[in-house]
């Protein structure tokens, strides 16, 4: 709590105090003889939340990583307790459920704040429900379902609103941003789903009236299963990305100078994609394309990749096959979609002098044009066997010089704009075992064809081999 600003600390303390008083009074009122029977309901509902949380425990790590835990158990339980218990009892259920062991490891003060917040919100919602003429529902008593629906939906809205206000205020006080921005940034998206989940709370209460407490288990069971499966989905997705990354690293070990290259090209490609207003699902695909763009280098003998001196024609041809080899490896991965083309054509040039197909301008797929720029940029700003890393300013100048001939000008400008806005972290992950770069001793293009200064001469070679009618690519 120490890291919070003074105002936020004061606010958190006030909310926790108010919540504690409320819950304490609630618990006291429940000890009155005529209310004793409601303890069973309170315990039953709290127990269910506990079970729901414990179900996810083995999946803890993945759930924390998942951006949104998309299925709510709290909201249905909150609404059900408003309907079944009313203002006396409902806040206790929600306060207790927030304090129970759960998948997310929060510091104590956050847990206390959440508990107080939920208790207060439920309390206000319960009074709203009662104020609108809604009656509490209990087992064995008939009630008019139509008279319940309107008040409880309003109460659900109120509960959500109070929750949102209390939460947004603490974030706004901590981060010093306007509350509206916080709400739109973090909570607006989940507002409607949460409201819809409150209907499950109504179902629990309705079935409770004729079938008893087992209704809560029955209604929540499919939701718990769904949440459990969602968490597994998140775990799988995390596993999936981690596996892909480590396999890519294995590929990079073949070429010591390009460690971390794929990861950085992927990052730069995403920057370009976002700057040019690409849809988010395409950006994801683009990220894969960036990561995998050099996967075909596996098909190039290590001897050639690690050679420090000048390459022979045959060795160039071997290197030039890597985009085609990359396509071979990734071809069957349906989910890569556009990325496969991006991998295949990332060494094409706008002026048609690239490889493997010699495509020109708009013929080159958008992903390939993006990766070409990101690739060149990273190659220039990191250390290579034949020269040291250049500064970002130099690299930008070089990209500008080559736009229109080698690169798509739109993508070059998008990258420059994005780097100005977000900065660029040149983490040159070069391992220490590599000797210091020898800048002048070697021919300007070395063994690297990602570097545009090298590529002009390479392009000439490609043009030459094409004129000679030599096969120069894998096809």
């Amino acid at each position, binding site marked *: 709590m120490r890291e919070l600003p003074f105002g936020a600390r004061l606010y958190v303390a006030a909310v926790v105090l108010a919540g504690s008083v409320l819950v304490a009074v609630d618990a006291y009122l429940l000890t009155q003889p005529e209310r004793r029977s409601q303890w069973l309901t309170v315990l039953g509902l709290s127990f269910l939340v506990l079970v729901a949380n414990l179900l996810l425990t083995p999946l803890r790590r993945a759930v924390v990583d998942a951006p949104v835990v998309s*299925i709510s158990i709290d909201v249905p339980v909150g609404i059900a307790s408003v309907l079944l218990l009313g203002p006396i009892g409902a806040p206790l259920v929600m306060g207790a459920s927030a304090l129970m062991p759960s998948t997310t490891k929060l510091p104590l003060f956050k847990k206390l704040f959440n508990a107080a917040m939920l208790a207060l919100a439920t309390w206000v919602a319960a009074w709203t429900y009662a104020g609108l003429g809604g009656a509490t529902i209990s*087992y064995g008593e008939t009630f008019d379902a139509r008279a319940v629906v309107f008040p409880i939906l309003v109460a659900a809205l109120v509960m959500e609103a109070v929750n949102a206000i209390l939460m947004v205020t603490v974030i706004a006080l901590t981060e010093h941003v306007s509350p509206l921005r916080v709400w739109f940034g973090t909570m607006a998206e989940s507002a409607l789903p949460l409201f819809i989940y409150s209907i*499950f709370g109504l*179902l629990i209460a*309705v*079935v409770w009236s*004729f*079938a*008893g*407490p*087992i*209704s809560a*288990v*029955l*209604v929540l*069971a*499919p*939701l718990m*299963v*769904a*949440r*459990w*499966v*969602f968490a*597994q*989905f998140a*775990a*799988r*997705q*995390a*596993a*999936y990305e*981690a*596996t*892909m*990354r*480590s*396999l890519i*690293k*294995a*590929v990079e*070990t*073949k070429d010591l100078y390009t460690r971390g290259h794929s990861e950085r090209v992927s990052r730069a490609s995403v920057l370009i994609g976002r700057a040019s207003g690409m849809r988010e699902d395409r950006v994801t695909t683009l990220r894969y394309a960036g990561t995998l763009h050099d*996967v*075909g280098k*596996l*098909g190039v*003998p*290590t*001897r050639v990749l*690690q050679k420090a001196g000048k390459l022979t024609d045959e060795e160039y041809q071997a290197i030039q096959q890597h985009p085609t*080899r990359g396509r*071979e*490896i*990734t*071809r*069957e*991965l*349906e*989910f890569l979609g556009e990325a496969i083309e991006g991998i295949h054509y990332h060494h094409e040039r706008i002026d048609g002098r690239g490889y493997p197909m010699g495509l020109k301008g708009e013929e080159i797929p958008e992903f390939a044009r993006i990766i070409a720029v990101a690739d060149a940029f990273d190659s220039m700003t990191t250390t290579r066997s034949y020269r040291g890393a250049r500064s970002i300013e130099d690299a930008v100048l070089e990209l500008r010089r080559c736009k229109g001939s080698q690169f798509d000008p739109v993508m070059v400008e998008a990258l420059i704009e994005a780097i100005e806005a977000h900065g660029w972290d040149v983490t040159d992950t070069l391992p220490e075992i590599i000797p210091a770069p020898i800048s002048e001793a070697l021919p300007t293009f070395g063994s690297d064809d990602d570097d545009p200064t090298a590529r002009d001469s390479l392009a000439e070679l490609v043009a030459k081999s094409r004129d000679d009618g030599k096969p120069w690519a894998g096809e």
Partner: protein
Amino acid sequence: MRVVGPVVFLAGLVVIAAVTVVYSRELWQNTFTDDAVLRTCAAFALFIAVGEIMRLTLPGGRESAPLASAGALAFALLPLWIGIDGAKGVPTPLVITVVTVGSLLGAFPRAVARRAIHVDELARRILVTALASWLMHQVLVWAVPESTTTLEEQASKVAILAALVAAIASVADALLAAAIRSGNERVPFRTAVVDEARALIGIASAIAATGVLIALSYPRMKLWALPIFAIPLLLTQFSFRRYATIQATYLQTIRSLSKVTEVGGYTETGHSRRVADLAVTVGRELGLSQRDLDDLEYAALMHDIGQLSLSEPIPGGATTLVSQLDQRQIAEYGAEVIAQAGVLDKVADIVERQSDPYRPRRGSVDPDLPLESRIIKVCNAYDDLAGTSLESDRQLQALERLALGTDREYDPAVVDMLAAIVMRDAVSV
């Protein structure tokens, strides 16, 4: 032994018996002259049909139709039946008839679209629903006094009993599924039971809960109960679908990326895929559970990834033919790469130990060597020696060499199982 034949046959007999009873007795008259009863039957049949159309592939490839199963269960558990002489619960023959009609109705569009129809699953549903209906009748007779005219006052008791019946029915369903799979795929029955329990526990509890809910609420909410309580189950179904998709993508990716050693010229084309297929077959028949089989498959696909650390490929990629020390280094490097992912520790362990001999010292077996590693060692060696050859001479020679290696390198049980599988396939070819 194939179990699916007898199961389908039994289900067929049950259906014929049920339809005959419904058709011949006063049940027919009572059912189809009362509008409310007719509507109920039609609604449930329709619900089951829709559920059947909205099938779902569970992670791991099992098929399921949660809505249809929940609808069938609900119909079997309906505690109040307005109609025939105060009978409690829906007559079992009628339950079977309605469930069969609904399922066939739902299967019809799939048949037209030439999608697979799962006869064994249909048979399972019919038998399990029959069991649930029969149990529910016993329970109602035992628990509800003769004098009760409405079940209202007994509702809480009935609810708990219905949940119990649903649970028993789910267990029976899993056992039946395990028996069918064990017969079809040569999996030991115990392993099949564990696999089915793991695969079905989530979706089965959601189905059971929804079935009981619909049955309990039906007297109050009438037909509304069907669509309303289908919503949570649909949500469950949706999340299963997403999970199954990512699971499939994961396997697809590892399969594709395992080709990197082939494209790099380190191994022969198709080597890792062949080793993986062989290893999974051997592992399955040796009784590994599905979860272990998944790890085995990943490990087998990536077992050669360590070769990427070599600057020059081994001729033919055959790790069996290089020195023990080199083999171990390749294995260790591969394990290191896989362990970096942070989520495949078991797989990394299997890969790391793939080159270890079965008996490191004369006579003594290494007790910690994972069975999966032993399987990969044998299958890898077999593929290195026999390759894609279908000539029985070469296959026999390879097997012979493996058999000779059982005094030190290879696990005899794995070699025996591999030999049995290779021989069987040779005969069937």
